[in-house]
């Protein structure tokens, strides 16, 4: 499955790119599993995802939890806790 990944704030800075398109291995079913898979893609990914507990995610622009299924997602975003307002 091909999906666009987007990164924001220090997740983006650590990985070094704002977005990329990847082919997800079939065994990745949830957002949490996707984070684990990304963390193994290189030093910069390991750094960005070193503390999965603080990473927030959205699928197709809606907040999701690590347990959420990635099936059918077109765009998955990862970012730190939000600090607007």
């Amino acid at each position, binding site marked *: 499955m091909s999906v666009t990944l*987007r990164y*924001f*704030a220090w997740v983006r800075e650590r990985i070094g790119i704002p977005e990329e398109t990847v082919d997800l291995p079939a065994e990745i079913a949830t957002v949490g599993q996707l984070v684990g898979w990304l963390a193994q893609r290189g030093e910069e990914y390991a750094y960005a995802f070193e503390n999965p507990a603080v990473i927030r995610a*959205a699928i197709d*622009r809606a*907040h999701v939890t690590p347990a*959420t299924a990635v099936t059918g997602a077109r765009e998955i975003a990862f970012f730190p806790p*939000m*600090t*607007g307002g």
Partner: protein
Amino acid sequence: MAALVPTVRVQMERFDLGAEADKLSAGRTDVGAVATFTGICRGDENGQAITALTLEHYPGMVEEEIVRHAQEAATRWPLLGLTVIHRYGRIVPGEQIMMVATASSHRQAAFEAAEFLMDFLKTRAPFWKQVESSTGTDWVDAKQIDDAAAERWRYPYEERERS
């Protein structure tokens, strides 16, 4: 209140608080109360002097997320109007960052809805603040006090799960 169409704008430009507040009651006689909140860039963050703030956002999602909470507010309080404007980009101390304005017949609904929207903007709208200071740049940490403030509204309002 399904008829309420909130005004939501995410922009680099400054906004005019007075003009936005006036629009909520202009040409109608059912609005008795307008509450507003303006967030302004302070010259310090956690006790350290800063020279500027840069707001990054997730275009598309941020508008959707604000509209979602505006609609949630309209189901909780009898609102007659609602405006949220949030800036992004570089902002220097003393400049406005964002505003919320709510209109209702009575004051309690206007105040509560404005506070509700502020608590959710702080914790759920995809904005991230980076500060510039003499020591470089730094991302602002999310505050637990903001999460706690948002929690007080969270009755059956659950994390939105994608099925």
